[in-house]
């Protein structure tokens, strides 16, 4: 049995990395739930955002608080462009998976060509700073990432819940033609949402660059985890995405501490299978 403080520490670590999963899941959950487009390329975009942050920080000397807004704005435009292509060709839910899967491969291949498959690490002065509470270490950057994830999830939830835009989007997800007949500008709103989802990927990428080691193949390891988070949190539910992320993050950290780190990739999958077996109506 591991020491109690080890379990406490892994709970903290899991909670914080769960925030990052939630942040990654947020964009996917929104576009899947409200636009009926399954964006497998979301993870690739997040990793691209991370590499861009790393590249601008280490090679061009642009600090993350300057490069961040630039990348976020650029990704917002990319999201709009992607949605334009989807609308232009009348892409279905299933086709969107194929196209964004291919986009993920293109991004992964480009990263590998530009920056090789070597591990990359963005060393910053704050990267190794932690608060120490009793026997627990709380890394500052991970905590910041968690807080940003929580803030984004909560504000997206409030936006969907309390504003006209949010209600209109949910109406469109239920039945787009009817909503349009009631005068909801579905096209405009869906462009906005698609842009936002891509911007969320950029935010996630920014923090991934700051707290994690980068490698192009990370895209594929995330897909399984984050897709499980989205399902557990329910489609189109921002707070659910955060809660699902925390659940998976904590379970993974406990597995790493108590069993073996190399089995962590199986955790999210097992939770998902349990959900499908015992609570199929959750879906």
């Amino acid at each position: 049995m591991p020491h109690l403080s080890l379990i406490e520490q892994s709970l903290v670590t899991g909670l914080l990395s769960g925030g990052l999963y939630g942040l990654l899941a947020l964009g996917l959950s929104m576009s899947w739930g409200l636009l009926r487009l399954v964006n497998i390329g979301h993870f690739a975009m997040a990793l691209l955002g991370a590499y861009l942050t790393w590249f601008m920080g280490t090679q061009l000397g642009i600090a993350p608080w300057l490069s961040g807004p630039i990348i976020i704005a650029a990704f917002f435009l990319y999201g709009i462009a992607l949605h334009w292509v989807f609308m232009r060709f009348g892409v279905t839910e299933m086709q969107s998976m194929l196209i964004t899967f291919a986009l993920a491969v293109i991004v992964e291949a480009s990263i590998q060509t530009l920056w090789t498959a070597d591990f990359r690490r963005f060393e910053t002065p704050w990267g190794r700073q932690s608060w120490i509470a009793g026997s627990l270490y709380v890394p500052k950057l991970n905590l910041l990432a968690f807080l940003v994830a929580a803030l984004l999830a909560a504000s997206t939830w409030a936006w969907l819940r309390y504003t006209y835009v949010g209600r209109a989007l949910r109406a469109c997800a239920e039945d787009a033609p009817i909503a349009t007949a009631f005068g909801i500008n579905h096209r405009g709103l869906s462009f906005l949402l698609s842009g936002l989802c891509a911007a969320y990927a950029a935010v996630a990428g920014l923090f991934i660059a700051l707290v994690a080691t980068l490698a192009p193949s990370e895209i594929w390891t995330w897909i399984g985890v984050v897709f499980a988070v989205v399902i557990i949190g329910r489609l189109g539910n921002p707070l659910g995405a955060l809660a699902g992320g925390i659940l998976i993050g904590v379970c993974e950290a406990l597995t790493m501490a108590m069993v073996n780190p190399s089995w962590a990739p199986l955790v999210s999958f097992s939770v998902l299978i349990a959900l499908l077996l015992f609570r199929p109506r959750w879906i």
Partner: protein
Amino acid sequence: MDLSGNRVLALIGLGALAVGLVVVPATNIPPYYIAFLYLVFFWISMATSWTILSGFAGYWSFGHAAFFGTGVYTAGTLAAKLGVPFLLTLPAAAAVAAALGTGVGWLVFRLKRLRGELFALMTISVTFVVATIISNTPLDGGAGVYLISVPVPELFGSQNGTIYTLGLIFAALAVAIAYTVYRSRMGLGLFAIHDDEDAAEVKGVPTFRYKLGAIALSSGIAGAVGGVYSIYVSYVTVGETFEVTVIMYPVVMSIFGGARHWLGPAIGATIITVALYGFPVGAQAALVRGGVALGLILVVLLLPEGVMPSLQRSWRRLAPALAPARSLPAALVPSPRSIESVAIRSLAPVLQCRDVWKGFGGVQALKGVTLDVRQGEILGLVGPNGSGKSTLINVVTGHFTLDRGTVVFNGAPINDLSAHQVARLGIARSYQIPRPFNHLSVLDNVAMAAVFGGGSSGREARREAVHWLRYTGLAERAFDMPRQINLHERKFLELARALAARPRVLLLDEVLSGLNNAEIDEALKLIRDIRAGGTTIIFVEHLMRAVVALSDRVAVLNGGALIALGTPEETMRDKEVVNVYLGKAHAS
């Protein structure tokens, strides 16, 4: 069989090609070309296996690397570590991969929503989960598996000859399986699932079983092919086995070739493999991968049907004698379902709902409906919007499961049966908004109902379909696609599909809405004719003129409960009914 000159010529050509491919290893062709041809066979089998599930039924698998990799490691472990003779490891590789595929399918195919999306994402996850398990356990342990010392029987004097021949056998087998499925009942069912799975189930397609069958075949082929591949590379690693290209290439090849045709993937695989390996320019693997991914996007957006349809068109132009004839087969009047000495009309109930309850979350759609439907009657089912009429139809046809109560058909309870079983017993329905299978011709739409609902064989079914198309006045449109016909015709197509199942009970959901007066009169006559043949009819309708003209009895639903039942005159005078329809003031 019609052996015209062209056909003989084509058969001779095909035979010559087969013989040529078989004897290739016996010739002096340099090993490089033999290895290249093996890779073509490899991708043909992978792409074809992908198509059997994903192309035909529309469930896109991103997990072919998992099934393939399971085969690679099953064969590798058995042959290199346990000393099993190599050829015996291949069936094991197929079986283990098929078991994995069936397991994933069983988990996801039961869901009511998001089946397709979840299946796709589950298969991606499975790929990386299987890779993790294999590299964390002694199966691989991170060191890879060497098969270099595994003895392989030598054909044509070398191991390469054996690998080549195995590759050829599995490619031929994969294409043969795809062809057989394509031409079978199961193929028709899979195509229907592709277009509208719920409607397919209601028309009598055992959707769950067919999907499991398709994924078992698909993953089994990929597993066997993986087994052969393990000996081809002779050293397997997790990193190279579960590569993203193994996921992506079969998808690109199938869609580019044409994923709705048994031969499409083979054509796509051949073209793309030649393009990829035929010009070794020493390009970086990452660039090639990115290029293929870009190709996938372009194909999905610009050529979603693949090159197969245009190839078929030129084929028809070049060799019209070989193309299937497009003339209507002679109509066959189907014998009615054997009704064991039951009179065409009687007071005996053929269908009984007893205290039927159904709720959706907080909404109680049916609150204890009890209703007997008599043999051979026309029962009008009316009620305001949201009164539970459609729910009752969905409950009777097995689309919804009940919360409480029983539905009895012909003396036996049917409420625990799935929709396709109910359909086979002889209960058919039409949809208010027509739901034809959009990629099947009008003729095939009707024929599939005869096959799955009426239990006819394929050949009979097409001739019966001609009969029903004549009956509903659609014979002219037999070879059109559903998108090409107008709403009125689509309504009649719904009716023809329902009739082709030779139902004992026919449920018609607002067949008249959207039709003009002349068309309505035509439809009313048709419905009376159908009843005259011994079919009991329940029809949901808002148009009171039709209800009064047609019904023997009228049942009125309101708020999920039956409030009146009787002759049209009786029910129309009923105070509560008038209340519901016209408001309280008129009732007094």
